[in-house]
């Protein structure tokens, strides 16, 4: 099993959720984050004091899937989250060794 972590633009969340649903991904966990990268930030001004805000709002979507699904999931996320402008975000894949469903103690594939 693998965990796919996608850092996306916040307003793309609904589209990504839908895209994943369409290929049967049944669960995901979403966190608010701030991202720093190539995308340039903006200036904020408070009574004349200027701050460069280069940590921009991003949404982190994590979903654990069976290894066979990984490529399909990536593809779906990419097509749903892409706007073509800098800052669209990244996808990371990490290995998952065990999964447990708390409610039933089911394990691994059964737990997804």
């Amino acid at each position, binding site marked *: 099993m693998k965990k796919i972590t996608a850092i996306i633009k916040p*307003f793309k969340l*609904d589209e990504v959720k839908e895209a994943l649903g369409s290929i049967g991904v049944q669960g995901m966990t979403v966190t608010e984050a701030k991202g720093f990268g190539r995308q340039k930030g903006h200036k*904020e001004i408070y009574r004349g004091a200027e701050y460069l805000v280069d940590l921009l709002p991003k949404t982190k979507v994590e979903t654990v899937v069976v290894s066979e699904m990984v490529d399909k999931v990536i593809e779906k996320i990419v097509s749903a989250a892409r706007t073509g402008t800098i800052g669209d975000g990244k996808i990371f894949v990490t290995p998952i060794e065990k999964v447990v469903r708390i409610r039933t103690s089911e394990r691994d594939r059964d737990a997804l």
Partner: protein
Amino acid sequence: MNAADTAWVLASSALVLLMTPGLAMFYGGMTRSKNVLSTMMHSFFLMALASLVWLFWGFSLSFATGNWFIGGLDFLGLTGVGAEVWPKSTIPASTFMIFQAMFAIITPALISGAFAERMKFSSFIVFMILWLTFVYAPVCHWVWGGGWLGGMGALDFAGGTVVHINSGVAALACALVIGRRKGYGVVPMMPHNLTLTLLGAGLLWFGWFGFNAGSALAANASASMAFVVTHMATAAAAISWVLVEWIIKGKPTTLGIASGAVAGLVAITPAAGFVGPISAVILGAVAGVVCYLAVLAKAGLGYDDSLDVVGIHGVGGTWGAIATGLFACKAIGGTDGLFFGNAGQVVTQIVAVGATIVYSFVVSLIILYVVKAVMGLRVTEEDEVVGVDTSEHGETAYNL
């Protein structure tokens, strides 16, 4: 000059001023958090801008002796608006002027709910200067300043036509011309802070006592009854809105009670000094239902009036103006309405409503198209996605 009346109208002026920050909270809470400051800025900026327009030419165009359509120039820059008693009142002219100034602030501020979350700030300023001059001042003159509607006997105690129909109709024009928010109907656009909206509703209810009971321009029984019916119509509308949504959608909501209260406040405004408490309850209860349905209908009609100015101020104001023609009772103030034997008053009211709607809509449209042609109305799509707080004002509301 009567000191008690002056005290009451000055206190009322302060109360009406507070309605605009109240509106900023009420509206601000309903936007997404990336646009709350921009929305509040609309109200706060108008507290400043409309006041200066009023001082330099707005008050004169509204209230100086003029013709049936527009006031004269005698009061430009408030020349001669000082300690002497204002005609047909017992208060200084300066008191009358500043009380009226607060109405000239809140009326355009109400409109701003229609184009929240996407309007260019510079275009907002230009639009508002033109609108105050070419729409607000004439309509105000028609009703209160010696113009044709007041002359013909239209009843508008505290601004049903001047403030609410006027702003509601202009809001419709704005929503149509500026177009829908990006993602409207697709991405969720939930209110970001309903405690702010409730606070705003509370301040509006509080301030509205100045708006309506202050419009008696004296601390007398008329002011007192205006105060009473304002409160009771609001209570009735708040409950009827909540009950009807409870029936239709299954839950009684806090945004519903806030919206219903405002709908009631709007609807009772023209009727405040003219109707009794039971009439006010009926008037308010109907307002809650009608405005709720008008807001529901928006989805079908396709325009994106972000914060429902049309459904609440346009529809509520229209209902209130007509209902004034139904429920008005000479024993309380003004003349009798239909239910007290004077059918003609409804006709007069309808004429006033119709004239205000047509004039406000057409002239607002013209101003909008001019501003659009000259400088555009909307921020860029990218700025809209990022949020206008950052893109137009370089600020973020919350760093919690």
